[in-house]
């Protein structure tokens, strides 16, 4: 593991045999500090099978260090909140039952994972913005999008709409989501935008570039960066738009026949669930509403209930 004065340990826990679990961050800051700099935290790797954020972390590190004279604020990059999970291709924290993104804000008195969660929250506290990058899971591909809880939408939309994303999904609140990192940070006054993009266990390079460009735009808006930036995309913002869910009603192999992030008509065939044993079509899968297909099944094997697609209702150019 590399040593560098700017690489800081956020949390460290001794493992049984000669090793420590370490949550690390890279702190990038101007050579001369005035004490009034704004701070942005880029966090990812909460789920060990979501890797899209790894490339974004690399690219941000590279670009900022190549133009360090343009850096006017503090950028903290946390590539792996769940480093053992990333290393071992495990979505959760190895040897721990609960989803790491369901134990925030954590507790110093609790289990090891809850202690690590508490340290992460303490470390990010006070930042001016946090971007929490996720990558769906191994089953579904997502177009680059922000997920924003309706209760904090007014705070987050100014950031979420400048991140060069295709879509901002303002979703309803749910009790179970009160234990996410984003909820915990937002409730202590750190605006935290959750980004979902790509698919688990893979890196989609152009999505990484797209989000990196967007983060630089937001950094410029905040006065953290004064290098060249692009004009970010204007995302589709769904505040009250209907979202149609498509779930498999038969087990088998799903083969799509539409492209991701394209418009579909109500009733249009999205794909078919096939039976490889007897050569039959178990289920033709159709769009429940007309609109834009923003989630599409990537992993072919499906069970009854497996999510196949999500469609944002409406007419889009």
């Amino acid at each position, binding site marked *: 593991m590399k040593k560098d004065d700017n690489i800081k340990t956020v949390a460290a826990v001794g493992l049984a*045999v000669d090793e420590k679990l370490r949550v690390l961050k890279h702190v990038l800051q101007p050579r001369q500090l005035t004490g009034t700099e704004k701070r942005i935290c880029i966090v990812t790797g909460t789920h060990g099978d979501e890797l899209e954020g790894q490339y974004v972390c690399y690219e941000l590190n590279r670009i900022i260090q190549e133009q360090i004279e343009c850096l006017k604020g503090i950028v903290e990059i946390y590539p792996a909140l769940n480093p053992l999970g990333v290393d071992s291709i495990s979505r959760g924290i190895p040897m721990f039952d609960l989803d790491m993104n369901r134990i925030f804000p954590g507790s110093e008195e609790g289990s090891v994972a809850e202690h690590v969660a508490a340290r992460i929250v303490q470390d990010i506290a006070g930042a001016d913005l946090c971007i929490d990058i996720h990558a769906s899971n191994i089953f579904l591909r997502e177009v680059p999008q922000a997920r924003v809880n309706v209760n904090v939408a007014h705070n987050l939309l100014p950031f979420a709409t400048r991140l060069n994303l295709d879509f901002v999904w303002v979703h309803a609140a749910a009790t179970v989501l009160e234990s996410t990192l984003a909820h915990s940070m937002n409730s202590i006054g750190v605006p935290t935008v959750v980004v979902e993009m790509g698919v688990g266990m893979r890196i989609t390079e152009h999505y990484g570039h797209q989000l990196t460009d967007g983060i630089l735009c937001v950094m410029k808006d905040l006065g953290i960066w004064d290098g060249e930036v692009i004009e970010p995309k204007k995302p589709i913002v769904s505040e009250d738009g209907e979202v149609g869910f498509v779930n498999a009603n038969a087990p088998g192999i799903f083969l799509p026949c539409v492209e991701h992030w394209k418009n579909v008509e109500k009733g249009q065939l999205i794909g078919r669930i096939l039976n490889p044993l007897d050569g039959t079509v*178990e289920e033709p899968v159709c769009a429940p509403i007309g609109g834009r297909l923003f989630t599409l099944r990537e992993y072919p094997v499906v*069970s009854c209930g497996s999510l196949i697609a999500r469609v944002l209702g409406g007419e889009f150019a």
Partner: protein
Amino acid sequence: MRKEKIFTLKNNYRDDMNIYGYRFGRGDKAACIVGSIRGNEVQQLYICSQLVKALKELEEKGAIVHDNEILVIPSVNHSAMNIGKRFWATDNTDINRMFPGYHAGETTQRIAAGVFQAIQGYSFGIQFPSFYIPGDFVPHVRMMDTGFQNASLANLFGLPYVVIRKPRPIDTATLNYNWQVWNTNAFSIYTSATSHIDEPSARMAVSSVLRFLTRMGILRYTSHSGYIASVIHEDDLTNVKNDLPGLYRRHMEPGQEVHRGDVLASIIDPMEGEIISQILSPTDGIVFFAHHAPTVMEGTIIFKIIRRLHE
């Protein structure tokens, strides 16, 4: 005894998963008992199988009080159990975090919805779950503090302890929580084991359920009176953590009385064999929970102690 399919999940590469219910008696929905929801809950499955066996014999003897129906669902997730997994076989989701479920949702939401539909409307709901921190417990009844819970009813199981847990957001999707919200008096019973069969605590669990059903007027059965439980709040338990990681040697067992300064466990250097730390009890009390794995990370909750309680 009537055996019926509660829910079927069709599969392509393996047999369909059928969830079975066993009904005893006829009439009002008196009590429902749910066993293994995770694939490693073998003890929970065993306890339910023994309950099915006992209730079958009792029903044949006419011991179920008129106008009462008891439903037992021993296994909800044998698709995972059969392949050595704890959570759902394909996507690793936890069915016990999916209640009340959704019939048109994802696979485990559909399973939860199918089960929940069958188990609603009972006066009493009894579940045999396992805890998210692995280790050994004193047998106890656990309830969520939803505002609907009734600790004095939990006492009627005759187990040594009743624990009240303040629910966190993630708990709001468990069976116990949702049963209570949907007007069933819900109890979770924890024994001393999960992934192996512990016969004495399994027998204790079976007896406790039969005792409870008898006391609620559902069953005619003569049993020992059991314990008058101590009611404790989970937040009042003293957590004991280890300062160093390494190999773990336990010196105290669940249920044992300890005094302040007693050695609860030793941590051994995994390479050199020396004892590098001794974990002392910070209080007098009874051991409620003890870590059981042979290795331990730094800062693990290795003991939970009921403060200032004596045998």
